[in-house]
């Protein structure tokens, strides 16, 4: 069965690129434009991996990660965050919030696939 990835980003371009890249690598991808929508999507069906932007309207990425981690079923869910630079502060915050890893955007599609494969198979 295909693994399902939820990509959360307020930028349509970025969502499109993540979706395209991961579908190309054989994943099912669902999209959300902010943390709130992501929470709804998580409630709607099983997701194997969340890739989230950090800076978003309504609910930002770090809040999303914290909220997801507070739900027992998602304690071990892989969550990758997309950061614009290798920003140590953001990384630390992400780690504290419970992120699994990070991807620097703009991402190299192969890199994205390989990281996704590492954390979710």
């Amino acid at each position, binding site marked *: 069965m*295909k693994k399902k990835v939820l990509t959360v980003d307020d*930028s349509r371009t970025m969502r499109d*690129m993540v979706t*395209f890249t991961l579908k*190309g690598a054989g994943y099912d*991808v669902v999209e959300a434009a902010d943390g709130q929508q992501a929470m709804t999507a998580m409630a*709607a069906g099983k997701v194997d991996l969340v890739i989230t932007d950090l800076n978003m*309207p309504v609910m930002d990425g770090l809040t999303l990660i914290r909220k997801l981690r507070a739900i027992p079923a998602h304690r071990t869910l892989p969550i990758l965050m997309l950061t614009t630079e290798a920003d140590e502060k953001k990384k630390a915050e992400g780690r504290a919030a*419970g992120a699994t890893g990070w991807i620097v955007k703009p991402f190299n599609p192969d890199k994205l696939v390989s990281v996704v494969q*590492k954390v979710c198979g």
Partner: protein
Amino acid sequence: MDDLSRFKQTYFDESAELLAVAEAGLLRLAPGDVDMDEVNAIFRAVHSIKGGGGAFGFNELVAFAHEFETVMDGVRNATIPVTTALVDTLIRANDVLAQMLAYAGEGTDAPPGTTDGTVAALRRHLDAAAHAPEEAVHTPAPAPASAIPPAFPDDEDDEAGIFGDALAAIAAARDEGAPAAGPVPPGKIRWTVVFRPKAELLLSGNEPTFMLRALRRLGEAEIACHLDRLPALRDLDAELLHLHWTVTLIADPEVGRERIDDVFEFVADDCDIRITAEAPLPAVIETAAPPAAETAPALPALTQPAPAAAPAEAAAQPPAAKPAEPAKPRAAGNGSGGEHAGLTSHTIRVDLDKIDRLVNMVGEMVITQAMVAEHVRDLPPGQFQELLEGLEQLAQHTRELRENVMSIRAQPVSSVFSRMPRLVRECAGLTGKEVALVTSGENTEVDKTVVENLVDPLTHMIRNSIDHGLESPDERERVGKPRTGTVHLSAQHRSGRIVIEITDDGRGINRAKVLSKAIEKGLVAPGAALSDEEVDNLIFLPGFSTADQVSNLSGRGVGMDVVRRNISSLGGRIGVYSTPGEGSRFTLSLPLTLAVLDGMVISVGEERFVLPLTNIVESLRPKPEDLHGLVNKCDVMMARGEYVRLVHLHRLFGIPKAIDDATKGLVVLVETEDGSRLGLVVDEILGQQQVVIKSLESNFRRLEGVAAATILGDGRVALILDVAGLREMSRHGGDNPGGPRPASFPATPSLPASAGHDTRQRQTA
């Protein structure tokens, strides 16, 4: 797959929206009035533009966006105070960003120095903030999280990374839910590969994840990572490998043991590998997967190469073909992801051409439906009751379909309205006036073409309102008005049209000045007695623009006459209502769509014409005493206490066999967009009808007095009259019984013939 350039258009589209968001936000940003949500939205917009730009290698753009973003970040963290100068710089930065995007869109480099000035200005704000005397600028302390040493090393490089702890936790979680050894799917073989590399594996430059990935390419793999040999952090040697894996691989029978051995070719000496295979229950093989029987010797617990070694060689194809697959899952994925399709947006983007073709087809269908209706009208009702009822329904559905299709082209006027705050800001700056813009009804929808063509007229009219309408703050204070003038821009639907109003609370139109200018320019005879309304409307006359009016703002050689022409070319009308000392109101009334028109079908001799309903005031049959012939061969008629010029359409267009005597035919009283009236002498009014507008210019050529053409229910081509054009024609003596036929109009006999011809062409096309 790495060709992400296909997303460029999405990026540019989205960036344009983001720029607009940023601009709107920046225009609302003012010292002492900082809405953090707004600031965040601006920051995000710039941030997203930068992020996407990086993906396409627009380095200059990214570099500039970074400068912009850095300052926005400062505003966000309140380390950079919001001043008017800062807002100006940010607005300029937004413009430059738009330019950079435009260059990127064209695929050209921005001219050197495009960003220099703005970058310098941005940096000045940044520096000023950095050297601000207040020490209270609290940069957030380094994140506390870094104080907690991660238990596991991060697996990272420049582009991405995985937090060691998290990875370990996930792997542990997977271990718990150990490989579920269910039945092997029919026609498949399940391999279990236990991969225990020596700790030194990494020192040889090998990367175990690559091998795991290679295994995955052979089939459906589940990989469990074992952490039992992982030492505590203080004992951990980051260059040693402490993990081992169990891979469960469901693969086609063609994938032999050799292929799996190949994966570990280079590390065979550095690791302990155990490979076992399971085939499905024999019964399943026989019934469900006969081909597998060839390789069926792949029996449980195979520890030697499968006999299928030879086929495996040839079977190198399937996995190799895998990379070609990506295109397919995208389409398939769309379907399976359907449950979430509505999650991000309920909209799709469609090429405008497609919509226009659809609009066109619906137009054709409306005509065809009308034709059918026309043909069955004469059928005896009793006999064809069901057919008639069916056609009635068809008419109903057609109408609904047309309305729905037209609404696809509809857009809210907000895209135009949103440009105005900036204009007002600029105008206010140039004139030294204080102006507040109030908008309402931004969500009113109207055809895209109308929306697009509203920009110039509205821009001009708002400039006018500020430049000429509003007084200076001091003057306003003197007359007891608030220093800040208000310009109100509103839109609303009113009886099938959109009405846009621009109201200001300025000084109103200076009628004495307008009148004297008009007389000076020879537009009005000296001593003419004009009503206030008539004087106000003089500003729409061509050539009215006066020397006094020319300022660096609105005096750009475009007068209100051009505005009126633009509006009337959209089938709209413009009016002005002014009260001295209290202000002016400009009213634009426009059709909601340019594809259909509510019209009245009239007949003149053998010809049919369509008059736009919006032009029609009333129709009447004059008594002989109402009619007055004038010396210059122009007839006038007394209608409701007013003299109205009569225009005989048959004379104007040279149509034979038409009624000349207005008392025997009908007079349709029409009004042009500037309020002047005409009486059109016609034979008969045939009825009201919605008609599909067909451009005459693109199919034939432009004709005076004719706005467009349409096809009537009986298949005949009818011309849609342009009332303002008719008035011009009649002024030039076209409506003259003995006068020459206007050269611009084709010989009438050709019309019905060409009409029939056109119908056939249309149907075969």
